[in-house]
């Protein structure tokens, strides 16, 4: 497999490298512009197709976890099911209920979808090693090499919530409104922890540029090893930001029918659906880039840019699978538990982590990185032990089974 990738890139490498390389003289040739546009189109389609495949994967994996079969009729293993779903969405009547705010109702799905698609512009999906000043440096390839890449993603991803909140409000229905209100409250609560979990990464890499964060990790070590707490909080907060279980309060079916998209149908509903999966893809790509070295994998990426794409894709697919995995494993949080977790647990923890990391860098003390995680694990162990000791006497053996004669009445 590696051999195939190795030979296939021989002819392609100069062309691809040309598209992604920064032009030093500042001139943009016609071919360069066309190449960039093609890559943009390719990326958008990859996200759209991945979104469709994720719907299929969600149904198949949930079925697998619940010992069912799931959709397996359309195409091999049911892989063409998303196409059938799309056909259904397209040909359904586009109902606009009479009681909605028409303008907001129409643009809300677009506001939800577009930010998720454009954030991918700065995500590095592969790269190569180049010698800069006698040192080998990992140079990432992305559509737009922004110096403030991290902030750009956080800023644009935060806009998507307007689609959900406005969709809920414009529907003029109490369930939708509650869903929209919850979405905005949840977004504000978890964006703080999310942003503060990124700060240690930026402190350690010394840059807001996603490519340079990867270069730092390629040179030193993946940040998941030095910032395990930030990684865990970022991952959890990203579940809340993408409205996935266990934090899917905006659409919790058991309470709010379908939450913010209760009144939406056909392609408008499909766009909300797509936005959720596109946001998941962005979150997975961001976790991969910030904490797991992006397209690098212990030297395997030196085989070529094709290998980089493969490594990056596999990491993203793992986190996408984790989204599904968690959804079908952990039950939904209660609303007050959700708020408590965000404000009382995550916010202080991330703040302490930022201070400790800054101190560790300023004083050059590596052990300070691990102080907080170790303390937390120790505290959790002690609390579990105390709780277990206290309630030990409460564990009674189960009552014995009723006698054979009474079984019919039980």
């Amino acid at each position, binding site marked *: 497999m590696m051999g195939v990738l190795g030979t296939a890139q021989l002819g392609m490498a100069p062309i691809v490298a040309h598209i992604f390389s920064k032009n030093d003289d500042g001139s943009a040739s016609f071919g360069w512009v066309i190449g960039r546009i093609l890559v943009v189109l390719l990326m958008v389609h990859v996200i759209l197709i991945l979104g469709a495949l994720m719907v299929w994967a969600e149904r198949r994996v949930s079925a697998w976890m619940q010992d069912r079969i799931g959709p397996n009729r359309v195409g091999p293993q049911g892989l063409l099911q998303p196409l059938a779903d799309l056909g259904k969405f397209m040909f359904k009547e586009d109902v606009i209920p009479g009681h909605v705010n028409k303008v907001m109702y129409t643009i809300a799905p677009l506001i939800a979808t577009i930010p998720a698609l454009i954030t991918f512009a700065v995500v590095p999906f592969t790269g190569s090693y180049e010698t800069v000043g006698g040192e080998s440096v990992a140079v990432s390839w992305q559509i737009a090499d922004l110096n403030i890449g991290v902030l750009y993603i956080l*800023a644009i991803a935060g806009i998507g919530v307007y689609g959900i909140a406005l969709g809920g409000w414009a529907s003029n229905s109490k369930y939708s409104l509650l869903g929209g209100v919850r979405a*905005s409250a949840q977004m504000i609560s978890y964006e703080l922890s999310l*942003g503060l979990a990124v700060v240690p990464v930026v402190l350690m890499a010394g840059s807001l540029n996603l490519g340079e964060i990867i270069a730092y990790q390629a040179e030193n070590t993946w940040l998941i090893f030095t910032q395990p707490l930030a990684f865990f909080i970022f991952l959890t907060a990203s579940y809340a930001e993408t409205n996935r279980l266990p934090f899917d309060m905006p659409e919790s079916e058991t309470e709010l029918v379908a939450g913010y998209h209760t009144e939406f149908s056909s392609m408008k509903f499909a766009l909300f659906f797509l936005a959720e999966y596109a946001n998941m893809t962005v979150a997975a790509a961001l976790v991969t880039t910030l904490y797991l070295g992006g397209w690098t994998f212990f030297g395997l990426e030196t085989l070529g840019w094709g290998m980089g794409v493969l490594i990056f894709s596999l990491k993203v697919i793992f986190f996408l699978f984790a989204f599904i995995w968690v959804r079908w494993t952990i039950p939904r949080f209660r609303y007050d538990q959700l708020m408590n977790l965000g404000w009382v647990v995550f916010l202080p923890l991330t703040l302490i982590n930022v201070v400790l990391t800054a101190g560790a860098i300023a004083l050059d003390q590596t052990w300070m990185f691990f102080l907080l995680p170790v303390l937390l694990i120790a505290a959790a162990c002690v609390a579990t032990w105390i709780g277990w000791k206290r309630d030990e006497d409460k564990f009674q053996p189960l009552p014995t089974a009723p006698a054979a004669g009474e079984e019919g009445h039980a």
Partner: protein
Amino acid sequence: MTTVLFIVFGGMALVSALLAVTRQNPIASAIWLVGMFFGLAGVYVVLEAYFVAAVQVLVYAGAIMVLFLFVIMLLDLRTKQLDEEGPPKMPIWGVLAAVLFIVASGWALMDAVGTPGFFPDAEERAALELDGSAKAIGADLFGRWLLAFEVTSILLLGGILGAVILTKRRLT
């Protein structure tokens, strides 16, 4: 090209701001304000202040306006209710505040324009390392303007305390 973009984004900000203060519907007002923030962010990008542009969208459009929207949706303000309240009771104070603000900020601006280095040319910019990066802003904010920065944070803390005391009548 830069001038055209500046006019486009500046115009977008101005029109959105005007629409934000004239809408009857509070949600529409909030959305136009978000549009204004995007226009402003565009202006910052044209001025090559990328960090400020990103923070503008991240903080104002992404967090503060979402909070506004949350409060408006929670209170469920209707246009009708606003009509019943009628026009502002004491417009004279509003006009006074506006005049005071314009005079004060105009004065400060005129004062600043006169000082050398307010409009740095290419050489001065290179010397100051004003490349719009986080580093340049951080160095300025926590170096030259540290006192102003800390005073501002105390002001904000006072605002937070005031809000807490106003909403929680009984502090137990």
